[in-house]
């Protein structure tokens, strides 16, 4: 990495004023695990390190919502009892990122700022319907997580003037994160999916659901057609099967070095079904129960057999050597 200087901010306010003083020549760095691999990206910038700002490293419940500070590391999320209890999808997603060395440095804010469409925590946050708080010269704006995405690797947050400070979401009744990767560590996902379910009683009439899948589009993708099927109904196994199929048929998958589009397309159904079953607390079917589990488990060979009408898994290439990080600015 190249940069022209390195400063530390110890509060969000200090970070903002440093960025203001630098007037566009500054750039925020959190964990740095991605920025270190982008040799020219900050070459002429003075880096403003925000990773020591303790006020942005929190996981707490306020009323019906959970609030997560952007500077929580993946390790913070993966080991948080509160998250395990209230938003298991996010804890599992964080546990799936990179390796222990990367999880202890990379932050959830960085994972979102890096703006990759299958960043594990971003998929979980998208399913949870999270909003993000962005602090800038004009104050804090709260915005839907997905509005932070301007395309692959491009965030709408300006790292020279703004700071992503945190996320919040309504606590779901259940949530689940599923991931298909070639290895259990240090492997970007072939596909990941998360589901969250809210249920305010009344026989399912007020059921709300979030389903997110990546990489299916240039940003984290919400399976809105599948969500519509479940919304307002008490979830049943049949409904979940139907929703999973709808997610598959509406997803537009791409070929990449990690998988061909067709294989990904079939796997959308499998992962969404598993995510919904787990989120709703319905006992998985025999086949799913025999699967390699949930959370951070890499779904392996078994998933191939689950693909309808196809057993070879498609043209599998090696993982891209670069960018296995948890993501950080």
């Amino acid at each position, binding site marked *: 990495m*190249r940069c022209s*200087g390195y400063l530390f901010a110890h509060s969000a306010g200090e970070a903002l004023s440093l960025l203001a003083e630098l007037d566009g020549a500054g750039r925020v760095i959190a964990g740095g695990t991605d920025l270190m691999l982008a040799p020219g990206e900050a070459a002429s910038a003075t880096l403003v390190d925000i990773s020591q700002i303790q006020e942005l490293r929190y996981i707490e419940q306020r009323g019906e919502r959970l609030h997560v500070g952007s500077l929580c590391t993946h390790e913070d999320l993966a080991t948080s009892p509160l998250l395990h209890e209230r938003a298991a999808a996010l804890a599992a997603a964080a546990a799936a990122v990179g390796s222990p060395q990367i999880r202890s440095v990379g932050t959830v804010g960085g994972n979102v700022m890096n703006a990759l469409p299958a960043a594990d925590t971003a998929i979980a946050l998208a399913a949870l319907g999270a909003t993000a708080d962005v602090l800038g010269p004009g104050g804090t704006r709260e915005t839907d997580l997905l509005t932070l995405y301007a395309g692959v690797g491009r965030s709408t947050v300006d790292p020279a003037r703004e700071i992503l400070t945190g996320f919040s979401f309504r606590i779901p009744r259940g949530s689940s994160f599923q991931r298909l990767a070639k290895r259990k560590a*240090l492997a970007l996902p072939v596909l990941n999916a998360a589901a969250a379910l809210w249920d305010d009683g009344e026989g399912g009439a007020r059921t709300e659901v979030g389903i997110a899948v990546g990489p299916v589009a240039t940003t984290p993708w919400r399976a809105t057609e599948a969500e519509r099927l479940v919304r307002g109904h008490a979830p049943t196994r049949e409904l979940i099967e139907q929703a999973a199929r709808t997610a598959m048929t509406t997803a537009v998958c791409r070929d990449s070095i990690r998988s061909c589009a067709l294989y990904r397309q079939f796997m959308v159904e499998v992962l969404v079904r598993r995510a919904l079953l787990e989120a709703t607390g319905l006992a998985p079917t025999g086949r799913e129960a025999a699967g390699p589990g949930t959370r951070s488990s890499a779904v392996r060979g078994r998933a191939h057999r689950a693909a309808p009408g196809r057993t070879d898994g498609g043209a599998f290439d090696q993982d891209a050597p670069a960018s296995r990080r948890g993501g950080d600015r």
Partner: protein
Amino acid sequence: MSAQRLEFTLNGGTCTLDVDPGASLLDVLRDDLGLTGTKRGCSEGECGACTVLVDGTPVDSCLYPAMKAAGKNVLTIEGLGDPSHLHPIQRAFIEEGAVQCGFCTPGMVLTAKALLDRDPDPDEQTIRTAISGNLCRCTGYEKIARSIQRAATKAAGPSAAAPPDETPPAGAASPLSSGEAPPSTPVTTPSLGPGAAPVAPVGHVGSSPARLDAVPKVCGTARFSDDLSMPGMLYAKVLRSPHAHARIHYVDCSKARSFPGVRAVVTSADVPGRPNYGIITKDQPYLAIDRVRFEGEAVAAVAADTPSLARQALELIEVDYEPLPGVFSVDDSLADNAPRIHDNGNLLLMRRVLRGDPDAAFAQADLIVEETFRTPLIEHAYIEPEAGLAWLDEDVLVLHCVSQGVHYQRGEIAAMLGWPVNRVRVKQATVGGAFGGKIDLSVHPYIALLAVKAGRPVKLVYTREESMIASPKRHPITVRMRLGSDRSGRLVAGEAHISADSGAYASYSYAVVTRTAVCAFGPYDIPNVRVESLAAFTNNPIAGAMRGFGTPQLAFAHEQLIDMLAAKTGLSPLQMRKLNGFQPGQAHTPSGQYIADSEGLLATLERATEAATTATAAATGRREGNDAP
């Protein structure tokens, strides 16, 4: 960029220095502080060889901005123990045989320390998760996990309070076969210096003596090629072709030569002796001559005062390429009118093996199976990238470098320079994994030419990307194979048509492809056999030596066919193999080699069956006991 002051605690002491604010902690530790026990494997956070502890937590120091260490407590392998004062984890790694090449070891040991500090009695799953960011390519993770367990057990033992610097009593005996050894059990290794652990008795067949070089490896003091340096040393970088196949009209190095800090620039015009090299066929230019045949082929090399200057100088070299159509598969390479990669044509070699009368045997066979199998190019992925240092010792050129064949490399370097071999010395540094991939030349010709031209020591370390594109790989192979048996499952005939992609140059293809032919059917006794095996040039990466030397690709094919045939005969896959496996004293290979002594297949199958039966019974018992669904 201007240097910034950095203050932190390093291995218990205060450390203050001025650093490049964009530098990684790894760069500062290795390059500024000379602490080479922390290894540079991938520089991308993939391999974990650079793991250090920051405030007790493992981090990839290659992805960790050095400035972040300000005010923190950094522990590197140098701060954990030294050869005369081993930490219990280091000792356990030696005792369990978890150290092979040693390149992943410092990072692995530190990750283990962080784990045991927070969880003194981890179960196996916890250990495996903890080390999941540390790759090992030699030992595998079984012995590493066992050593961590062993260290944990010892720490929990009666002398857990024993300080890590406890010096073991000298002369205590091996073997280290038992996990119940008292915590004071010394590391039984030959003495490596004053105060080092004691000498192992020799001649203990069946015992587990410690490796000769295990102590420096667990301490990070073993000197791998990238750990070497000399006063006045220059740093080399190689300019590589962006084209898979192209004609070179000219290479203009004049701007690079006059760039400040550049001490030497070489192209093929600077090769005074023989222009080509190769283990068997001398078909590969040391530096491209008028033509490049694969993406990543070396065109020029620069030596400069710093790696950064050398990199900048590469950008000043002008190369006029005329891209040519390339061929990227054996089929395309051997098609009529295919672009010629070498003057003698694209077919490198053909090997044929004939035993008995396969046509008649297939005609009489009761059962026949046939399939086509393809295996991919495979990268060795040793954690240590290729590296070396060359210097002139009066009129002798010395290379201290990665190697799996110092004599071969000496001969090639001498031929390149047009020197007698007694003026070239090649010393093998500690090698961080090779698996066949370091038999060929890699950094050697460039550091040799540059050191002679500049008259100063020159070091070159490949980036991970360079290592991936420039060094030979496992041959991608397509094999069409047919097996015939009688009704009882006894194999009567075999036929294989094998084609191997040699990439742009021959490297070890002659030997590898010959091996695919003579070992085409593995350890199975087939009286009537026809094999045709060929290698062709393409514009793909070069294929050469890699463990197994062509036989793993064929095993993939014959093992599948044996299973398919077993299904047809009604035999189990195990019965099928027992029926047809080499019987020492009776069997012949396809090339007629008589198998006089045990080659172990049948005995291995017996033992594997026993172990599997035991394991299955245990698993079944567990399931029933747990009343699980």
